[in-house]
């Protein structure tokens, strides 16, 4: 697997970042849904700490990913109708924004509530804002709403990839999968 992107497919770095973050986002969404209903206790404290640690990791990976995206060239879009291309790129743009806004809103919530922020029991990160109950409530609600927004956008993202894979039979999904062989490109009518 090439480290860098080619015109045909994503390289190792882009793929690693994509799938690591996919795992982190999916995992943290599940952890988040479970933890809020837990009864008070050490397990709850620990699982919240893990949720925050994963969220910070996703945020750090996002920074790396955006940097890499600016450095490395992008593969050329698979042939597809213009509306699909526009929709796909809009979805990607919204996903980037959400991957930034969700951890940040969580961090603001955490800070405004006065909770500590520790990365996997290793080191602490500073509060973004002073303790503030109103802001804490607002950021907490924003965090939750944005989570459901990203769920919806991810349904479109994953759905689009699967439609391209199964129905359009192109390389949209394959070129992001690790170790997958690309299909020979269909040069026929893209519509």
């Amino acid at each position: 697997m090439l480290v860098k992107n080619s015109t045909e497919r994503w390289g190792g770095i882009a793929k690693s970042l994509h799938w690591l973050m996919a795992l982190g986002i999916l995992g943290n969404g599940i952890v988040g849904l479970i933890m809020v209903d837990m009864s008070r206790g050490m397990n709850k404290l620990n699982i919240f700490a893990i949720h925050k640690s994963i969220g910070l990791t996703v945020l750090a990976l996002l920074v790396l990913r955006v940097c890499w995206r600016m450095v490395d060239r992008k593969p050329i879009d698979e042939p597809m109708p213009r509306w699909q291309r526009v929709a796909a790129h809009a979805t990607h743009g919204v996903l980037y924004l959400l991957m930034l806004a969700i951890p940040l809103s969580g961090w603001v919530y955490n800070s405004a509530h006065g909770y500590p922020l520790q990365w996997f029991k290793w080191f602490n990160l500073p509060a973004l804002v002073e303790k503030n109950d109103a802001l804490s409530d607002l950021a907490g609600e924003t965090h939750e709403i944005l989570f459901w927004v990203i769920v919806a956008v991810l349904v479109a993202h994953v759905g689009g990839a699967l439609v391209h894979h199964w129905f359009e039979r192109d390389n949209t999904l394959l070129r992001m999968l690790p170790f997958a062989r690309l299909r020979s490109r269909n040069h026929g009518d893209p519509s």
Partner: protein
Amino acid sequence: MKTLFILFCLVGMSGSAVAADYQVEKGSTLNFSGSFQGEKFDGRFRDFQAQIRYDSTNIEASKFDVIVDLASVSTNDKDRDEALPGADFFNVGKFPNAHFVTRQFKKDGDKITAEGTLTMKGVSKPVNLDVVFVSRDAGGTLDVTGKVQRLDFGIGAGEYADTATIGDEIQIKGHLELGAKL
């Protein structure tokens, strides 16, 4: 007879000078700090009674006796304040108070140490406090600092014993405004 009289006066004088009893006045605080998930937090006990006898010229005659109402704890965090009085931590239902009483005072140069016993949650352990007394009019201020290991007293035992999450060491800081005892 005359000698006896002088002796009486001396004893009387030394008695009042050595064993000065003070009254704890408004502005006195009993604070502590611990750590949670790598971050320091501060707390205080709103209600406590302290009997203070102190004399810097005869330090060994001093005595502190402090009773702390553990339910009056406050740490600026609703969840924590609800958890601390519970059975996992102070268990105020069964052990409403902490009790600190000095055994002896020691003086090493300018440094004064109150060696005492702290009883909490049915456990008694030696605890030493550094003492700084500043005389003022008929009273003064008394600042004490010390530390305890929370697990020595079973505070937050069981699942809360993980010291990577809740630090074992608790810093204690008391500030007493003292007035002459009426």
